[in-house]
């Protein structure tokens, strides 16, 4: 959710989140100008390897194999191009980015290129010396995911033993070294009641920021929706808690929240508009307008192996497919909010309605909205289903079953 950060007429903020559900805010004029030049944010998924197996992972269901990953030099070239074309922030993510042995070189190149560097890590396999080295090379900010505030819950959700203890130790190193820390709290029915404890934990760790990131139901989370989606009532209670905490902790902790849009009336301005301020690069070098864009079968993606990053941003078919408002159908086309929410999320429209040009069914004007909410509420009311963990074995299984409709909402 984009908040209005206009401060006393002197400062505007453009929010750029690694979870590309928070979009670009600020004046339209400015964003239009950015679009003509370059995105402000780049999400670099360095690898899909990960020690955790969280069932809501934002990676595509078809995981990229190690042998297809970009080389060190290819990633370094991406960072240099990004700095040159005017990208301001790079989010080094995955999978688990520290699984790349050359992370140091990539961070250094990004920092040298003038990019503000953000490491998004599961933090279960990183030694203090490595963090110190990364800081020395120019790493600006660290985001640590915390699957739950109690150890058993964290172990079960991530399918990794003693994860919480390792994460907290790492998070303390971050603040001890004077680096800004974000706690990423992925929220769903198994931990939604722990939102207050998450916020206390972030304060206790000396975090600068926490993301209360309700699972977004694409990819793995879509497969696991019946295992993850909280009830409407739980969701509203958690949102109210966060809003009160935000006021109480003003100046102490920044609390950003991504809410589950199934229970919203209006869709989120996904990516702040398609191809407007943000791009994503997969481990194999494909350049996407958002991390879930590969779920739209009609799109063709260019690779940094074949083309320059700026050319891809300006000219690639995938970026131009849903840029602006020309592509819209009704009810988006004549909607007063079309330049506010851009019709919501194309990937969600695809997943639920099978047509990426439809209004995001999170919008109450979508003919699919009522049915989608009904299905979600009925799933939330039933006992949680078993997790389909995010791993290569399950990816292969799901891949085979791809022809079967995964879509319950029609």
């Amino acid at each position, binding site marked *: 959710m984009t908040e209005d*950060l206009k*401060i*006393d*007429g*002197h*400062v*505007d*903020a*453009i*929010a*750029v*989140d*690694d979870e590309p559900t928070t979009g670009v805010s*600020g004046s339209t004029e*400015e964003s239009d*100008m*950015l679009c003509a*030049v*370059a995105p*402000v*944010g780049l999400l670099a998924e360095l690898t899909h390897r990960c020690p955790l197996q969280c069932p809501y992972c934002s990676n595509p269901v078809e995981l990229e194999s190690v042998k297809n990953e970009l080389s060190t030099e290819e990633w370094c070239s991406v960072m240099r191009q990004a700095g040159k*074309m*005017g990208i*301001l*922030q790079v*989010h080094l993510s995955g999978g688990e980015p520290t699984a790349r042995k050359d992370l140091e070189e990539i961070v250094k190149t990004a920092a040298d290129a*003038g990019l*503000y560097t*953000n490491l998004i890590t599961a933090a279960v396999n990183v030694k203090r010396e490595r963090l110190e080295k990364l800081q020395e090379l120019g790493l*600006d*900010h660290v*985001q640590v995911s915390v699957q739950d505030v109690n150890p058993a819950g964290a172990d079960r959700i991530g399918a990794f033993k003693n994860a919480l203890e390792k994460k907290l130790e790492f998070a303390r190193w971050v603040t001890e070294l*004077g*680096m*800004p820390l*974000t706690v990423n709290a992925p929220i769903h029915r198994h931990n939604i009641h722990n939102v207050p404890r998450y916020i206390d934990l972030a*304060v206790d760790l000396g975090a*600068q*920021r926490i993301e209360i990131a309700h699972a977004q139901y694409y990819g793995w989370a879509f497969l696991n929706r019946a295992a993850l989606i909280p009830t409407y009532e739980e969701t509203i209670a958690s949102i109210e808690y966060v809003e009160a905490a935000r*006021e*109480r*902790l*003003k*100046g*102490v*902790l*920044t609390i*950003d929240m991504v809410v589950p849009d199934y229970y919203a009336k209006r869709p989120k301005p996904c990516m702040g508009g398609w191809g407007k301020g943000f791009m994503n690069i997969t481990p194999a070098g494909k350049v996407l307008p958002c991390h879930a864009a590969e779920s739209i079968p009609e799109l063709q993606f260019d690779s940094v192996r074949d083309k320059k990053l700026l050319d891809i941003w300006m000219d690639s078919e995938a970026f131009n497919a849903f840029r602006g408002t020309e592509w819209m159908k009704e009810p988006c086309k004549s909607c007063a909010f079309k330049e506010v929410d851009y019709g919501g999320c194309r990937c969600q429209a695809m997943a639920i309605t099978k047509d990426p040009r439809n209004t995001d069914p999170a919008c109450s004007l979508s003919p699919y909205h009522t049915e989608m909410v009904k299905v979600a509420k009925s799933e939330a009311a039933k006992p949680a289903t078993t997790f389909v963990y995010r791993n290569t074995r399950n990816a292969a299984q799901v891949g085979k079953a791809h022809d079967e409709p995964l879509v319950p909402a029609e």
Partner: protein
Amino acid sequence: MADVKQPGRLMVDRATKPLMPRYLKLRHDAGRDRWVLLAPERILTPDAIAVAVLKLCDGERTVDDIAANLAAEYSAPADVIAADVVELLQDLADKGYIKG
């Protein structure tokens, strides 16, 4: 705005010595010809006055020092400027961008 002092919240007054944390980066964004303040998962676009203030937030100058500095530069009354600077910095502090 509820002006309640919470533990850890900086309340800015004219004696405060504001500090912009090292992890924030004030840079000129040449491609778009503007200043940006790069912060964790945020990009702020300060205007000329905010840039002038932020550049002086070194943890040693007080708000009064900063106001005096700007008063000389912009030929404006220091008292008026000090009140504006307090307001600007309080908002920035509440969003986590300025420490005391």
